[in-house]
């Protein structure tokens, strides 16, 4: 499987603070891209709420609640309510629930992967990986400079190919920290990141 196309984005407010971001998504710079992004987000919210509403209707059909509870009357009599009632009546629970779960999961899925490396002189290095869904937060790991032993690029087998990876050796730990672990970008990107990180992290020798 070829590696997913990923682009490197560098933010460098000062020479002592650099953020490298590798992403499978094009940066949201043009207006059309931004509009598309927000439209897709809105669509996801709409679909997810529709699915939840459908599940609620099904629940009410199965276990009708006492007066005053349950789905409001105006919602049932409106056209989405009618469609939901029709669908809830038509589809059996054993098919509806897994199907709804699957659609909800698809709605919550993030369509891209973004991993970044933030280098702060005097403080340390921070790796960030975006989560696979919108529901969970990104996972970050901060490594103080004092516990960084080395940063290197190495190669390793992954399935049937050889991939390069950027790794940070942390003192006192048995496993190295792989930067960009799920994207594993190409060697040219890794070299650029490696050079930038090394020049940014340590004070220049006088």
């Amino acid at each position, binding site marked *: 499987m070829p590696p997913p196309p990923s682009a490197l984005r560098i933010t460098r407010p000062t020479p*002592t603070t650099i953020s490298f971001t590798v992403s499978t998504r094009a940066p949201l710079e043009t207006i059309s891209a931004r509009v598309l992004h927000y439209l897709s987000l809105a669509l996801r919210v709409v679909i997810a709420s529709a699915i939840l509403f459908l599940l609620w209707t099904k629940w009410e059909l199965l276990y009708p609640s006492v007066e005053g509870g349950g789905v409001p009357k105006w919602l049932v009599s409106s056209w989405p309510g009618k469609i939901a009632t029709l669908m809830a009546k038509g589809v059996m629970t054993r098919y509806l629930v897994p199907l709804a779960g699957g659609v909800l999961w698809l709605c919550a899925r993030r369509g891209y992967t973004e991993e970044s490396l933030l280098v702060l002189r005097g403080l340390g290095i921070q790796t960030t990986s975006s989560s696979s869904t919108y529901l969970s937060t990104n996972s970050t*790991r901060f490594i103080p400079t004092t516990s960084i032993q080395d940063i290197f690029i190495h190669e390793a087998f992954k399935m049937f190919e050889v991939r390069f990876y950027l790794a940070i050796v942390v003192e006192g730990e048995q496993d190295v920290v792989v930067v960009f672990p799920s994207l594993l970008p190409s060697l040219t990107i890794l070299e650029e990141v490696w050079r930038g990180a090394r020049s940014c992290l340590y004070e220049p020798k006088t």
Partner: protein
Amino acid sequence: MHPFSILTVGIFVAGYTTARWDLVTRLYELAIFAWDHDVFTRAVKGFAGVSIIFLAIVYPVSRIASREIVLHPRTGAGGISAREQLKRRGNGLMRIFWPSDAPSSPNPGVLVGWRNSDLDVLVVAILQDTRSVENAIRVGNLFRSSPYPIHRILERCGKSSLQVLGSVNPVVAPTTFNPASITCYTSPRSRFPHLFCPDTKEVMVQVILFDRPHPTRMQYISLAPISLALGDKADKSGKGFPPLDGVEAAEEREWERKQALVEKLKQHTVVRHSRAQKELLLPVIVDQINCSYELNALLQSNIGLIGTRSRRALSVGEHIVESASNLWDLILAWLWYIATEYIWPLQSRLFVFALIAHRAAGEVLLRILDWRLFPGHAALKDVSATAQQVDIRLQQFCYWPIQYLTLRKRKQTWQSITNSHPEYIRFYNSLWLVANDVIIGIALGSYIIENATFVAAQVDKILTAYTIQGLQATIIWLMDWPAGLKLNTELATFLGDLFLWVIDYWAGCMAMLRPYLPGIIHFIGFSSFAGATMPISLFSDLVSLLTLHIYSFYVAAARIYNWQLTIIISLFHLFRGKKRNVLRNRIDSCDYDLDQLLLGTILFTLLFFLLPTVFVFYACFAVARMVVIGIKAGLDTALACLNHFPLFALMLRFKDSRRLPGGIMFELRDVGNEKFPTVEQREGSAPTSFIHLKSVPLPLRAMLNEYFQLGNRISKHYVSPGVILCLITGRFVPPIHRKNLYSLQYSMLPKQRVGIYELWARVTEKDAKVGDGAYDLGLVNGGFGGNGYVGGGSGNDGYGHRRKGSGNGVGRVRVGRG
């Protein structure tokens, strides 16, 4: 000097004098001449005069000067410009830590905080009074009426005192950048400050915004994730017990291999960078951030006091009001005195005695539970779930007073000192779990007691149905060509009869036990008032006792099956004309005689055809055994959940996740300079990066880490190819050692419990501390002056705490006078 060189010099001098003797005589004559003409006396007079001048003028002047330097230190660079300093230092990175709740109004103010190095500052407070803050800090006015000694918090923050770092929004704009007195501009549009620093290509700026953790809500940040387990054991807890099984040995090997790789990697590191001061300071900065909230509150409360004149004399009306309030205070103090002097000591004494007696009884029980017949053998608590449960509870009871004392100490100092927060979570977690356990236990116990006969009947019914009648039915089925398998009838009948006979005997035993079963159930019901874990563990033990026959059947059937399999394998070697050489651990070829071959082949055929019959019986009992193990595993899981589940931590995680720090993270923020419109030089400002420091809450995965470890260990032990091979070949599957299984439950307990004598010492020390607490309260009431301190100081009779207590008192008196 080295003796050898002394010798060399001596030899040289001696040789020189002998060689140039005439020179020596000339020198001697010169000395006599000088003595005759008063040269020596004049030299001595001159020396004395110079000494007198030095002692009378120069020495006092230098003393005065040094004293003046101490009294009025020169801040700043002492004549060297900032640019010159930066040039000397090379490329500079100015780092400012800025609290996110600092006021962003455009009013002028003074920055107070820590200066960790010349270009590294942490802002604690912005004081609006610009006049005499520097002097007030030096004299200590700003730390007046601090609840606890200020030096404790300062010691924690790198032993440096607070300083004036610079000014914010000054009326007169500065012209040059001076790191000794920085100038910041704030704007309501951004939480980030703007540092005045013209772009001179020599300095870069890092502005790091931090959210102050609230210490009274027990929030804090830390570099390492908070550890819910007690860290006094080795990281591989639960290991090292004599019966190290294969899984652990493999883990150990893997660990060593990785360690060797780590060592190798160390040698591959080409450039070793020395640690810069700024990098080493990170832990100190984390502490400073943790302490900044309380210090800020203290400074802000005192800022109104500086610059005000001393209090005027009270007016008559004020005198009356004060004396009236003093009278009330007096009555309160008297009541307080009676309570503290007579009622409280008696009660606490009684409580301490009860505690120690309880501890002693617990010690005896713990010794019994931990007693081993022979060293290396299993103790009682390794065999029985009930014994283990009692052991865990007793150890918790032994640990609670110590934990409580630790937590009391936490109350007696600054809240920012966060050492005991994990202990707090552990303590309340275990208290909550025990309370939960007891509540569930009471519900369960009352049900069992009320329906004892019914429960007993049900238990009896289930036991009979499954372990006796079910087993009998299965064996009879196996004897009669099960599922169309045509087994060897004679062997099946023999084996079946054998097992049936034992089951009959066992059924007789059970019938003898039956009248006592309601009593036993009653006992279990009563035991559950000590927590739901007790009936569960008792039930677990009962299950292992009442299914003893299944265990023995399994062992017997496995033995027979394994022997038969071994014999078949060796006969198969014979069949092929080979044999196993045990000395070399290999298979050699061997010339057998004809009769040997014939007999071996006949036996091989016989045993091979009998194998399915034996296998069927073995499989039956192995499945029964596995079911029993599964039931016990389920009960053990319930026990583990009731004993260890991190309820309190989970609650905290949802209530206030900042109380469970899992590390820190930085976020690069894009703050344009155009947000600071008041600064004229904003175009030519030095490159600045804006960073937000955040605390990462502890992930759920880390909270339940112990459970994942346990699951991992169990799956490694039971769902490994080795175990499946053991099952297939009929070898005995070694049960996982209880010690390994329960390292989880002991992870919140210390390895070595505190002895009775030490507990006594620490509890009586607690009494002294209670006295301390009383005088603290007296101080808060504000009724007494110095008397309160004296009383408090002399009232101490603790072990090394008297000195500390009286020291506090003296310190406070001094502060009060100042």
